């Protein structure tokens, strides 16, 4: 729906997608939006493709994003960006972590990891921002904060200032991880802001 913003998070189980989507959801709530988020638990989390769907607006009904209606796709793995092409429209913003995680058929050498996997998106004229989140997080002091780097990079496309996210990180994330996450967020935001 035109009056509802749609953010699709995609990646591989274990990449911290749920935390990233939680931080984003809380930032949207803090800015006064209604929101709904849909997650998949269970079988899908054993290293398989994982998504979280976050919708926000004045009043959100459906928890699911319609095909062709994702305004933002934030992908934590390159192939997992291309997998959701069906959900994009020409004005979508795609933020991609340049990390590659081999699916079983690639890890076993049966097929190569698709070269230029993001071309299928860019050739549609959709804006793609690539983020070396793994390296940036490592420089910030913790590779596991790559998910928060991605949130930082995405945050420039959402209508909230950095302070909103910082407050969420300060209140939602255990104290010992706060500083590194604040640094990771700031480094990510710098890329796109």
């Amino acid at each position: 729906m035109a009056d509802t913003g749609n953010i699709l998070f995609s990646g591989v189980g274990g990449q911290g997608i749920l935390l990233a989507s939680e931080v984003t959801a809380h930032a949207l709530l803090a800015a006064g939006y209604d929101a709904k988020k849909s997650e998949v638990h269970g079988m899908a989390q054993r290293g398989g493709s994982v998504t979280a769907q976050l919708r926000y607006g004045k009043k959100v009904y459906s928890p699911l994003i319609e095909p062709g209606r994702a305004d933002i796709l934030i992908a934590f793995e390159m192939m997992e960006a291309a997998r959701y092409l069906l959900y994009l429209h020409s004005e979508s913003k795609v933020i991609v972590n340049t990390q590659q995680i081999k699916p079983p058929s690639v890890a076993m050498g049966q097929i190569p990891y698709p070269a230029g996997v993001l071309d299928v998106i860019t050739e549609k004229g959709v804006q793609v921002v690539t983020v070396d989140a793994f390296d940036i997080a490592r420089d910030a002091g913790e590779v596991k904060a790559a998910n928060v780097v991605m949130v930082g990079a995405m945050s420039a496309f959402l209508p909230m200032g950095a302070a909103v996210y910082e407050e969420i990180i300060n209140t939602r994330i255990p104290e010992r991880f706060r500083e590194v996450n604040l640094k990771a967020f700031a480094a990510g935001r710098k890329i796109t802001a």
Partner: protein
Amino acid sequence: MLSFFTCLWQRVTGEGQFLYSLCVVTADNKKESLFIGFVVRFASHPGEADEAFKSPSKAENIKQEQVKKVTDSKQLWMSGNEAIAMAAYEAGVKVASGYPGTPSTEIMENLSRYEGVYTEWAPNEKVGLEVAIGASFAGVRAFATMKHVGVNVAADPLFTASYTGVRGGLVILTADDPEMHSSQNEQDNRNYAYAAKLPMLEPSEPAEAKELLKQAFELSEKFDTPVLFRITTRVAHVKGVLSKGEMMQSEASCGIEKVPAKMVMLPGNARNRRKVVEERMALLREVAESDQFNVIENGDNKRGFITGGVSYLYVKEAFPEASVLKLGMSWPLPEQKIREFAAGVDELFIVEELDPFLEHHIKGMGIECHGKDLIPNQGELNTSIVRTSIDPDSAPELFAAAELPMRPPNMCAGCPHRGVFFNLSKMKDIFVSGDIGCYTLGFLPPLSAMDSCVCMGASVTIAHGMAKALGDEGKGKLVSVIGDSTFVHTGINGLINSVYNDSKTVLVILDNRITAMTGQQNNPTTGCNIKGEAANAINIEELCRAVGVKHVEVVNPHDIQACKKALKTALDLDEMAVVISRAPCVLLPEIKNAVHNPYLTATENCAGCMACVKLGCPAISWINITPEEAVAKGYKEKQKGFAVINEVQCNGCGQCAVLCKFEAINRKGE
């Protein structure tokens, strides 16, 4: 449902400023809540805020004028399952029992953290429901939770509890899984309400789930009936905004009360109760006719929609102008209300996921309507499906999906199950009957070592049935595999049958010390209860011996050779044999957080045999090389590639090192 939250929003746009406060349930979902609040200055024109989410990228960043703590808010951000747990607590539930099963598991997990509620993991859903019935008979509010297929296991007590009725309120929650995200079928459990003659309530979202569950307990006590409460994956695992509510009290009094005419379902008593059931359903139909659960939202009368559950949300989004009859009570149906609604609209559409449950009953009233002639009867619905099923021309042009390698789930790096399935995959003539759990992934390539999987507990029984059918042909070829929790769930019954009726098959119990698939729940074999406190532990090998299995061998599955020997020994026996493969799940916190001692590849020694790669471990990958690259690396020209271990992912289980004959896999530092 208009929330407090939405009202606040309206104030924002009017005054340009608003106070939002958020009650955050801490990461471990403890009750202590953290309150944070924001005073946010918005654009002075309401429309500008609207613009912000129409095109987020163009939006001006909203400046946060002031951030301050407030403590008077009740706004929460919760999943449907978290909301239901809170509602059960607020409803005054005293006893709750369940068996883990996606998408229901988090309800009991969360409820176990509230004070004053007794919670437990039962070995299976039938046990869980009977425990809840017992608590209800003792006069307290009781709650049983399970996934949709769990209701099949609990169906025996369910159908008779409908006759006995309750003392304390009794609610049975079924979490259905349209689309089979994590299930072996997508049965529509609304049919149970009809078949068991029980009322069923069905929310569309977390906030509504919370309100409806509390009303379910009142309904149960008021009408002396168990109440079925149906959610689906897109209610259970959807997060939304909701509020804390008031605590409620049961009307019943806790204590022993003998009411044999109601509680002893001998035929004579049951025949009397059968009449009571009909009288009760007549009274419940009156409730259905009221506006308590079933509400008409008047809109454009050209099209009217009757819908319930999450489908209601899709209808509201796809056809915001249309008239809607939203059914919060899926059974019994409000015939009068439906007739009036149908008469007031030009065209009537029934929008429901899975079975044409409402449609059949509404057509049975002689009312013309569209339903499954347009709306799919398989899988989940969504706004697009609902819109384009009814208005095919509204389908937008979409980018075609890209063709990419699939990324199915896989057993984790270091998963103990892999050692068993690797060995089974090498035994070409055997048939492996599997069961429900993480280990069902043993079916997937490269191991491909599972040949059947039907339901919880069906591994050992299917092997037994095949053995009886095949006779001598099946000798030494029939293996069943089952997890520790599933073995206790319903596997033990099958093993008793196999011993009693002289099966000559091998049962492998994959004991990874936890119920893993659903996210690490304790079970009767782990030595801990739902709260993680010490509990009596069933000894699996003693249990097997007690039911008469003479050959019980415990083996470490990471020791590939020992595991192979144990399987071969068991298969060679002419009697029922049990092999217990015992090693902890790598996702258990004590394993996950331990310092790992990973293996590394000495690639110069790799001969490219792929023995390690064929384990299908996510930490091992294969790098293809050209003949020139092979020569440059000092390999034979014909070597096609080499294996590499990802040090970060490897947790040092050592299965691959055992398989490597070229000393190319060594523990780090050795």
